[in-house]
């Protein structure tokens, strides 16, 4: 399973990279960790005629506070680095929890945050979690720079809002407010497999202990991270009782999502799992919120 031939560039700066992308447009693909792109090339499912190797750009790998409790993460920051970073562990615990779920130890030494997001796999943890946290992504082209909210970035199966000449350079993730809790629940066939269904949830309580806000986002149930808007609607302003959580889980799994069937799971089983996982995730998230 050998990849087809391609033209190769190895820029050392973002500017050089953007020039290549501008020159080649649709023909060019940036190469980050390669953990998703190269298997597809070896299977010849992806046949980019131009590959722009980002691995020699050193200034895209960083984790910095954003001044508001959140973080800026450079797009080429490797998963392993994110997973062991104390700032992330403290400020963005949902990401800290998500990292060990990504693939295998070897995948995590090479895979990058920006690469995972750009690949836009609806089964990817970081893709989902960045939507749950209302993150935003800084995207540059030769002529332009813009910020895209996570909720608008993933527009289809393996399809992001990136234009061919654009490069994702930075991710901004806000921290959760006080009295917040979070949870990531997944079910996978084998420990390291992509989830059959997963849910990343955050909740925030008001001073009275009612649910002030919530974010419930699923992975592996659609062509992009699926937000459980109706379930969130049920929770808002209410006391998070066991019955309410059950109702929210029911709503999320029956109305908010429309999962498909594939070789690993039927739609019906996915719905069932979504129900179970939402309930468990909300339980955990609310418990954490109460502790905070």
């Amino acid at each position, binding site marked *: 399973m*050998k990849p*087809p031939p391609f033209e190769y560039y190895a820029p050392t700066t973002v500017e050089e990279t953007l020039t290549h992308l501008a020159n080649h447009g649709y023909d060019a693909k940036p190469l980050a960790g390669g953990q998703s792109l190269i298997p597809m090339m070896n*299977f010849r499912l992806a046949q980019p005629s131009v590959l722009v190797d980002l691995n020699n750009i050193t200034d895209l790998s960083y984790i910095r506070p954003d001044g508001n409790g959140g973080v800026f993460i450079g797009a080429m920051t490797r998963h392993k680095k994110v997973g062991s970073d104390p700032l992330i562990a403290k400020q963005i615990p949902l990401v800290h929890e998500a990292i060990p779920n990504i693939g295998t130890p070897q995948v995590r030494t090479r895979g990058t945050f920006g690469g995972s997001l750009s690949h836009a796999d609806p089964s990817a943890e970081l893709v989902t979690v960045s939507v749950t946290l209302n993150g935003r992504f800084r995207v540059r082209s030769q002529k332009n720079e813009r910020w895209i909210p996570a909720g608008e970035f993933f527009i289809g199966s393996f399809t992001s809002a990136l234009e061919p000449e654009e490069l994702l350079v930075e991710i901004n993730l806000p921290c959760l407010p006080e009295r917040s809790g979070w949870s990531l629940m997944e079910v996978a*066939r084998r*420990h*390291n497999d992509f989830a*059959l269904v997963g849910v990343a949830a955050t909740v925030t309580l008001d001073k009275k202990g009612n649910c002030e806000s919530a974010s419930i986002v699923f992975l592996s149930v659609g062509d992009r991270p699926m937000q459980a808007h109706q379930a969130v609607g049920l929770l808002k302003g209410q006391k998070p009782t066991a019955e309410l959580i059950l109702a929210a889980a029911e709503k999320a799994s029956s109305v908010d999502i429309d999962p498909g069937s594939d*070789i690993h799971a*039927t739609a019906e089983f996915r719905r069932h799992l979504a129900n179970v*996982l939402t309930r468990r995730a909300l339980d955990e998230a609310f418990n954490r919120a109460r502790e905070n």
Partner: protein
Amino acid sequence: MTKHFIGERIKRNEDPRLLTGQALFVDDVEIPGMLHAAFKRSDYAHARILSIDVSTARERPGVVAIFTAQDMGEDWMPGPPLVSPPPTVKDVTFHSRRQAPLVKDIVRHAGETVAVVIAENRYIAEDAVEDILVEYEPLPVVTDLEQALAPDSPKVHDDLDSNLAAHMYQQKGDYESAKARADTIIKRRFYIDRGAAVAMENRGIIANWDEKSKQLTMWDTTQAPIPIRNGTAARLGLSDSQVRVIAPFVGGGFGPKIMMFYPEEMLLPWASKKLCRPIKWIEDRRENFYATTSERQQLHDVEMALTRDGHILGLKDDFLHDTGAFDPYGLTIPLNTQSHLMGSYVIENFSSNCTAVFTNKPIVTPVRGAGRQQGIFIIERMLDIACKELGIDPLEIRRKNFIPPDAFPYHNVIIDQAFSELIFDSGNYKAVFKKTLQMIDYERFVKEEQPRLRSKGKLVGIAIVPFIETTGVGPYEGARVQIETSGKVNVSTGYGTQGQGHFTSFAQIVSEQLGVAVKDVHIITGDTAEFHWGTGSFASRGAVVVGNAVHAAASSVRKKVLKQASKVLATPEDELELEDGLVRVADIPAKSISLGELAALANPLRGAVEPGTEPGLEATDYFGPQSGTTASGCHAMILEVDPETMMVDIKRYAVVEDCGKVLNPLIVEGQVHGGVSMGLGNAFYEKLQFDENGQILNASLADYLIVTSFEMPPHIETGHFETLSPLNKLGTKGVGEAGAIPVPALFAQALENAFQGRDLEILETPLSPNRLFELLQESRTTKEKSQ
């Protein structure tokens, strides 16, 4: 005191090379001027080839040649049958159809080879494969076993009347009269689906025809180098002595690497001879799912007749067996299934109709277990179902029906895969069962732990499944043992090795006879230039058949050593002992001679030799067992199921293994662990999924799920039990497949036990969380309907 080597946990001779990347595997071989092959394979499972256009592909720089079936001219012919149908079973119907090196007109399974590109490297070869344009006329595809036998089914071979590949009926006693006497008849239908071997090393072949010396050298990941040599020589019109086949280190076999002749095995030597260049083909992982054989799919309609106190009167099993598009491997798998349907039990009346069916799917040949797993799955499931219906304890029903230890050799009447009567040579099934129960703490779990955990809402289940395994079948293997003047011992055998530790276990047998350190015994396997006769690695026969050949040859050498040393040391033979590479007089250790010196004396450069003596200290011996030996064992497991997500967590796992005399406990344990990991795959993770067009939906390691460190039990406790085989001098039995055989039955029993009260009945394997979910939904619906 003589040291003992057999039965010791000796570190493996082969490990230093393997651990440092210095072991030679097929793809490691580089020959100057070597070319690389890639195959154009059919995307269709059933189609007529209308045209093949290779013109663009030929133009690609770096492409040296492209061949289609047309280009082979008169050299094109299908492979020979590997195993014939059993001549000893009456009225067998068998339609032999075999695969060809390249498809001529009709493609019969997805992945069949349509053309081959030979290029300077594999990258270019794959580019050129994409350039080849094949025009197909798609034909209707048949994948389902029952549909394949329907009168209007598309035919895989249109020169036959139907897709019936074979029919075989076997019986013991008289099932119908047993049925008439029975208090209970239990009927069920079972479905077992396909799995693949997934050795970590894919297949690979290098063929190097040297025009000047007129010699063909092949490196092949085969489990059977000698038959490959013989068949290749025959196909190319060469003498055996012109062909050398080397199976170096092979990264796992598990069965499919003994299938022959694969299309690529027929093509590559021919192409090398045509181009007079060495050519290498290394299978990639995607190809492996289509191009390498797989196994297990069967559909069984079973009936068991019992007395009300759980005594089995008779068993009837009519089943369909998927053979894929061709049937080069005869009826080995169904014979194994039939041989294992009666399990470890006294069943005096048995009847089994087997129908092998052609389908538009890749060829079926043995994968670890080779049909035994299906037999054990069925008998053990039927017993579990019987105990529920009769209200008998699952342990009791087994104890009641076990073949007792004084009943050996036990004649099971039907014919097995070795074409002779299925005779169990020795065993003590009750004792093995009891030991396993103790190891898993069965009673305490069922009486105390399980109720306690269940009261907390934890769904825990326990299971225990005994099994037998026919092993060590003939026809024969051979070995040559030679003491060198260095004092080290050289052993050659025609057998291959794929990780079973032959370099060590066979050495231990020699050490036991000659008193030489295991590390000083050098084993050569898998090279036809080193040993001329043999069949190959299958049916858990290495330790038994090769082991005993090695033992015989080493014993012969020992006799020669004693005879000569007796003369040299002027001492009677019975006062001599062999230890530490020396022959010494028992009470006078100073009076000794090294084996190396003896070897030199045995091969004089001058002078006369006595008539009748052979040079050196060397012997060649063969071992051909009259019948296979029967190993046995028992597995037990405790698992917990999450009743909402259907995810399974194995808490405890115990195995008792009776493989007769154990040569090396480390190696036996390793075989058991590996077997369990494959068995778990067949129980809950591995399923080769085909769509109705004959396409494999999960042809990658991301989607075909083999277990990782996490899915295994936290620790497999292994116990040994030894009932020696009377059929060979070492008293040993095979163990290579044992670990995999009872696992699906075990898993099913454990899940039913965990879900007790939920009416769950498992009649299929492999399962999955999704399938478990569906079965529970169905059982709930049935319960509601019946209320």
